[in-house]
């Protein structure tokens, strides 16, 4: 399948593919049984998905209360709380709302506390936790601390996955302190080395939509990812499903898909039409002076000093000029047929002889003397 941008009015029936993808993604979104942080991420994606995802976004709004309860009741400066807090800040911002006053400071304090830890597992060893924390900081306009940037860099060096890298790229891109690493993460996401990672097409499309498809990414890769993402089976991973829901909902208005065969047919027609138009214009350009010369033969001869041409002269010149027009048309026809890979056969040969001679003969005998 190959994407083709077209106007909605021309292809109503072809809009169903993004809708199907969106519905599939919505069905795979996290439920109440899933982690709060994943539900928050899904809510953020739906909040950024536009009006087509409004109902689904409203259904997920309850997670905001769950997150508030988790943060406000029994707060601890630990990884699970930092994880939820960071994502909650980002989600609330996506909902165009303001988080409670102290949340940003709370995240700052927690990040400082976690920075001092020397445990085997922590924020920087778990990429999706790292994403949430960075997202929370950058959403609040905070710079990403060095230890988190170092942790991110270490992750990229160790063996990143596309899905996590896409989220990191997006989170880092929100603040200039992370811009350089964000670009690096985007390169990872679109690199050929990771083309077979799970969810690669969704992650690429989502990242391109979130941060814009710059020169480093390449429009073609984005287009290919978009086409693959929208037609691939619905992902089992709830975060990839949320990403797909976001981008597919946004694409409902603009994206049309065609089967390749139909697209080829359309392309062939278009090519043919433009070729024929091209030859027609060229032929017309050559024929027009000749026809004008035939029409205004007496005047033309007058300009040349023969104010009283004989009837035979007129007939003869009209014959020649008409034959020339026929030859031009014949040559143009043969060329066009060749370019269109059409074999004109015997009919073409007959027509090639008839085209200059028949009109010329008629003009010879009928031209007014």
């Amino acid at each position, binding site marked *: 399948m190959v994407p083709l941008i077209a106007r909605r009015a021309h292809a109503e029936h072809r809009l169903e593919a993004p809708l199907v993808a969106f519905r599939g993604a919505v069905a795979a979104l996290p439920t109440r049984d899933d*982690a709060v942080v994943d539900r928050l991420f899904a809510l953020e994606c739906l909040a950024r998905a536009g009006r087509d995802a409004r109902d689904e976004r409203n259904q997920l709004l309850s997670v905001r209360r769950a997150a508030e309860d988790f943060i406000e009741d029994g707060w601890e400066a630990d990884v699970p709380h930092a994880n939820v807090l960071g994502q909650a800040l980002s989600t609330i911002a996506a909902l165009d709302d303001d988080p409670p006053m102290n949340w940003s400071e709370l995240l700052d304090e927690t990040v400082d506390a976690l920075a*001092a830890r020397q*445990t085997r597992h922590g924020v920087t*060893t778990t990429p*999706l*936790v790292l994403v949430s924390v960075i997202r929370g900081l950058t959403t609040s306009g905070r710079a990403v601390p060095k230890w988190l940037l170092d942790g991110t860099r270490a992750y990229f060096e160790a063996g990143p996955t596309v899905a996590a890298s896409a989220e990191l790229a997006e989170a880092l891109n929100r603040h200039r302190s992370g811009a350089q690493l964000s670009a690096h993460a985007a390169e990872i996401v679109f690199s050929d080395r990771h083309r077979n990672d799970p969810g690669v097409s969704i992650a690429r499309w989502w990242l391109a939509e979130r941060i814009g498809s710059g020169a480093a990414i390449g429009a073609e890769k984005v287009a290919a990812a978009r086409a693959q993402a929208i037609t691939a089976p619905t992902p089992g991973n709830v975060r990839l499903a949320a990403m797909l829901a976001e981008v597919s909902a946004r694409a409902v208005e603009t994206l049309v898909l065609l089967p390749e065969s139909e697209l080829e047919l359309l392309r062939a027609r278009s090519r043919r039409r433009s070729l024929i138009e091209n030859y027609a214009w060229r032929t017309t350009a050559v024929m027009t002076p000749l026809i004008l010369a035939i029409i205004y033969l007496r005047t033309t001869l007058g300009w040349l000093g023969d104010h009283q041409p004989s009837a035979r002269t007129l007939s003869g010149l009209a014959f020649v000029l008409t034959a020339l027009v026929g030859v031009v048309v014949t040559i143009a026809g043969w060329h066009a047929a060749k370019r269109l890979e059409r074999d004109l056969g015997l009919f073409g040969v007959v027509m090639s002889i008839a085209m200059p001679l028949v009109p010329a003969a008629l003009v010879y005998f009928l031209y007014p003397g």
Partner: protein
Amino acid sequence: MVAQPATSHPTASATGAGLRLNMLPVVFPTEIQHDVAYSLPYTQEAWEPLRERARGGKEFHITRHLPKGLIYLWPHSGESMPDDLDLSKASTHLASTLPSGVVAYAVREAVVDRLMDHMQFERVGRTIEGQVRLFRRRRNLAAEALAPLATAAGKTIGPETGMFPYIAVQTMPFGDRDHPGQVALVLDVGLVNRLDVPLAQLAAAGIDLVGTPVVWSHAEECRCGFEDARGSAGTITGGDATTAVTVAVAGETRTVRSGCLRPRVSGHELDRYFEDYLNDDANVERLIRAKAAALHDPATQWKMLEETRQKLSPITIFSATEITLGEPVTADASGAYGVMLMPPLSPPEVNLSYGTPRLFQNAAVGLIKQGPYDKGSTRRLDKVSAAILHPPAFKADAQRLRRALVNGVPDQRYPFPGWAERYELKELDVELRGFGGGAWTDYAAAAHDVTAAAPDGSRPDICFVITQRSDRNTPRGKNPYLAAKAPIVNANIAAQGVTVDLLREPDTSFIWAIQSICLQAYAKLGNIPYVLHDPDGTAELVLGIGRHDIHLPGLGFQKQMIGAAAAFRQDGDFLFAGSTAPVTDYESYEDTLAKLISDFIARFEREQATELKRLVLHVFKKTGWRELEAVERALDGREIPFALVHINRDTPLWLVSGWGLAVAPAPAGSVVSLADNDRLLMTGEYVTAKRRNPHPLRLTLDRDSTFQDMSRITAQTQGFTATSWRGFKTTYEPSTILYGRLLAEKVSDLLDYGFDPQRAAAIGDRPWFL
């Protein structure tokens, strides 16, 4: 006179409500009793001769009560005090004025007197922690089980050899033991193996006596030079079983007449004896085990308890006072006798996701749905290289293991998809490494080879060693699995033993075994399958001290080895934090405990970058001033609340539900309060009651603890029963204690094979000992 009148309480057998315990309230007669007990001021000088004179209760009974500073004396049941005993300076006490601790002791001795004087019971070993075990030779379960074999062989099994049910007698006061109060008799049932035959006969039966623990067994009028010695005699290290053997005890070796010793036998040794005696290797073990299993049925044991209760009553205590035993105590909400049924605990929840808690009550289900706890972490080992070591005879078994690890095991309902898929490993490479021979030395050589780095510098992350179940019975120092494990663990490679007996089971049962193998292997790699979740906790360190009893032929005595394991509360989860201290013996336990606690606190605060807010110490033994002092020394004046908890897995108490004689072990999660610092907790599997141990764990909080929330301590202990990582089932004891015990056991087992005990500390962060 009523010593301690037992008030009438409704019983579970009548109402069906509550849970019953094997505690039988002692009922004193309601009329005035004129029996007296005597007391003398306690001094060591007075105590020793009197104790000698009492002859273990044969002459009279004696106990000391240090809080009151008195020695109490009273006559052997139904008799008078010896006429020649000078009691002119003694005070007299009516039973009703005695501290309940003394009454409890007197009741126990009265029951023992009755069993021994009138019912032909014999003592089994020493009194351990207030418990006297007695058996009689009338019912020989081994003889019953092996009767057909014996008949066929034309032999008889006499009462001197066999397996016998024993009654464990213990008493406990309800409430404060230093003041008058009610007491209860606790009866438990178990099995004892006896081989009361001369050592020479055992040696003639082909039993290797070196390393066999022995107890003293003097004949009347024995003059061997050790005739006063009782109890454990140590371990045989050599000599001639027909005349005299060398015995090592407490680091000292002595030569003893073999006639004055008798072996203390394990089940395996008993099996070996009968296999030789009856010349039947195929059936003896199976028949004996089947008989033992039948006795372990809780309903059977409860029936025995009831029969014993009825046969015992009335019991004469002191000279002529007759007491009876009430119906078993019922724990219900009313709290009769102070024994109160608490709200049950729901199954513990384990977390299967670091950073974003995903909680499940069933770890196996959680693993299928969510993957392992650390799957999102970059720090886990997710590219695994494994080797399977096998002798030629087990090649097909090794291949089956490889197939199971790589491709899984099919099943219509619950297929196992393979190690890599279930644990979301990125790569799994399993290589078969055959070796010649099959002796323990061949295993050791193969293990050494596998630890050597390949030309590219790589080594396996884990070695599966194929052995057979019968290897367990090999003499100490010749066990193939341990011989292979020692060099592998020394090389910091995980080792996992798998027996061919398991590998030859049909898929329907093998599928469960392979999942436990993969779980253990995953944990041994240093990864985390799942953890105990504790959302309401604080910066807390839980330290478990476990014990393993070993026989050390080289050192010559039975030794208690102590292992410690810690769990740090981190990010709302309890993570295994390893054992930073090497395994220590019991003698140095007191010295190292303070350092151990101190080291763990330092490590906790360094790693977590936060101050410790609570310390919980799970200890296998009764806590006392030594533990208290160790904790206080480690805390060094810091006001950190601490709890010293004795986790008693050997309590004789039972907790059962049901009516009359139709009982079943109480449901897992049942909690009974015996006192404000004393709880019974039913552990084990929540779903199956059939095979559950009717003995609950007994949790006793030291009175000097500064953190005293027993509900929290009980729930936390129960939580740790879900995280053994040896299998998905909840275990009887919490992993804190279990790990300490396993660590001590594995270290002591591996010592004979060149294992460096310091390695235990070096690799202590991985549960290599599972």
